[in-house]
């Protein structure tokens, strides 16, 4: 039902859609007696909705609407990865270094807000990291949604994975220095962290006033994805989950790896799969959770996860495959 409809059917449906009466014709095709049975009617409604959704998706009509989304599960959780940063442009390992979004990244944030607005999503509360690329992404998206007034909680627990001694190094140079395999291992291993940041590095977090209240033994000097999850999970349980249980619609604006951590927690993605999971930048990822905070698979959901991205599916697919090629040396 949610698979792409083939070209002939699409042409027929387009004609129907243009006459504005396709749903009615489907309904009329069902014998009247059938229509009167409540269960049959519900099934029929589901068919019509799925039909329209499939049609909508195939025709590239942006996005599920909140009414469709909210017919699944109980709680809304939206994840948003910040867009292009200044160091993305320079192809440098960033981690905890507090670089800004680029002009393009800012535009991605505005667009994300637009997509949520078009889906008629409303939000009650937001969480983000201590890093300005995520905070600015959040603020720009909220502004687009006319929701700048909602409470925002910032936490270093949602920061990007701390990249240790690789922070500041150009990705291609690192590949030349250590070899593609070692770099790939550091980038995509589940439990192997990069080398710890050097004591005299200008990027050492103890030099950064925003981390002055973190006890020295908790301040990371390098993180693997596993270690990132170790500090994201308790924060999710203590701070985010209670808001969801109160019925609040939550937006989390964060980073590739802190979001991978959340997705792994939510969908129980296996370790070997989560490392390669690309969460595209600037695309709102909508989850609906049941009362036990387990995700309910949404129509059009991406591979391995229950959440669905907002936006034209071709555009989303393009974004998902776009992230993979950063370490390739020309």
């Amino acid at each position, binding site marked *: 039902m949610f698979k792409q409809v083939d070209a002939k059917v699409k042409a027929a449906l387009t004609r129907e859609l243009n006459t504005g009466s396709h749903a009615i014709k489907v309904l009329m095709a069902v014998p009247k007696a059938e229509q009167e049975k409540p269960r049959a009617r519900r099934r029929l409604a589901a068919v019509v909705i799925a039909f329209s959704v499939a049609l909508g998706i195939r025709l590239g009509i942006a996005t599920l609407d909140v009414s469709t989304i909210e017919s699944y599960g109980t709680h809304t959780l939206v994840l948003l990865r910040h867009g292009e940063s200044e160091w993305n442009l320079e192809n440098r390992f960033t981690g905890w270094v507090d670089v800004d979004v680029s002009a393009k990244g800012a535009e991605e944030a505005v667009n994300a807000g637009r997509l949520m607005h078009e889906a008629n999503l409303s939000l009650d509360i937001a969480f983000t990291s201590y890093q300005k690329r995520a905070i600015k992404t959040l603020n720009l998206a909220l502004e687009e949604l006319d929701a700048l007034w909602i409470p925002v909680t*910032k936490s270093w627990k949602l920061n990007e994975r701390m990249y240790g001694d690789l922070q500041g190094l150009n990705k291609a140079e690192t590949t030349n220095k250590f070899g593609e395999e070692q770099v790939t291992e550091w980038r995509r291993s589940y439990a192997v962290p990069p080398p710890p940041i050097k004591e005299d590095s200008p990027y050492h977090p103890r030099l950064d006033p925003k981390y002055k209240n973190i006890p020295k033994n908790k301040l990371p000097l390098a993180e693997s994805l596993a270690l990132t999850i170790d500090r994201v999970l308790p924060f999710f349980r203590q701070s985010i989950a209670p808001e969801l249980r109160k019925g609040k619609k939550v937006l989390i604006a964060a980073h590739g790896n802190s979001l991978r951590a959340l997705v792994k927690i939510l969908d129980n993605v296996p370790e070997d799969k989560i490392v390669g999971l690309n969460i595209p930048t600037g695309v709102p990822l909508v989850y609906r959770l049941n009362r036990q905070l387990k995700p309910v698979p949404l129509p059009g959901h991406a591979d391995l996860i229950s959440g669905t991205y907002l936006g034209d599916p071709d555009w989303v697919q393009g974004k998902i495959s776009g992230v993979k090629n950063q370490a390739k040396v020309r």
Partner: protein
Amino acid sequence: MSKKATLIFSRHGESEWNVANIFTGWVDVDLSEKGLGEAKGAGELLKAEGLKIDVAFTSYLKRAIKTCNLALEAADQLYVPTNKSWRLNERMYGGLTGLDKKETVVKHGAEQVQIWRRSFDIPPPALEKDNKYHPCHEAKYKALDPKDLPDTECLKDTIARVMPYWEEAIVPELKAGKTVFVAAHGNSIRAIVKMIEGISDDVIPGLEIPTGTPLVYELDGDLKPIASPLAVEPLKFGRYLGDAEKIKAAAEAVKNQTKVG
């Protein structure tokens, strides 16, 4: 052991309706380009002064929220926890909301408008609930107790709803010796400054708070303000950061918005 605290106010800069010279109140207009610049400027002054903010407070209105965010960003402190409350909103301008300031003077006379703008306890006429500008239509106020949602306010009313928030949310931070940044509006700032400076009911409506320029208070362990030699009349304790001449000129400019002819 009680600690010294620092309290910094920043009134948001020029908004789109300042430019259009329209009474704004609770309407959620954006900052103009100039206003955006004023917010950044405020942050630069905070940075130059070496102020390290622990917590920020702002209203539900984007012109203040954006001022807060831009100032914090310019001061390299965007990560600071920020609390938003409708209680720090601008005074609600009732039936004057959306009206052109000079036209209103022509219609009602300068004296009447001056009363509505600068009286302590005479509010403008109430705004009807079916008016498109009434806050009852906005999602941001859905959680408010209906009796808290104003149809109009005089400065006295504004003070009455600001001060509970001051007590419950801001005072505890100051008592803990924190450096607190409040990015808000002319009248919500007047409410708190009135109390700190001990300014009378008849003087406070005329106190002009320049936009963008941070106003800094040092408070002792009992939250008593410490006098500053840099304070500008009628303030005894608060000092503005930045150029003194510019500050005087900015205060005059706000006064001149209802001058006709």
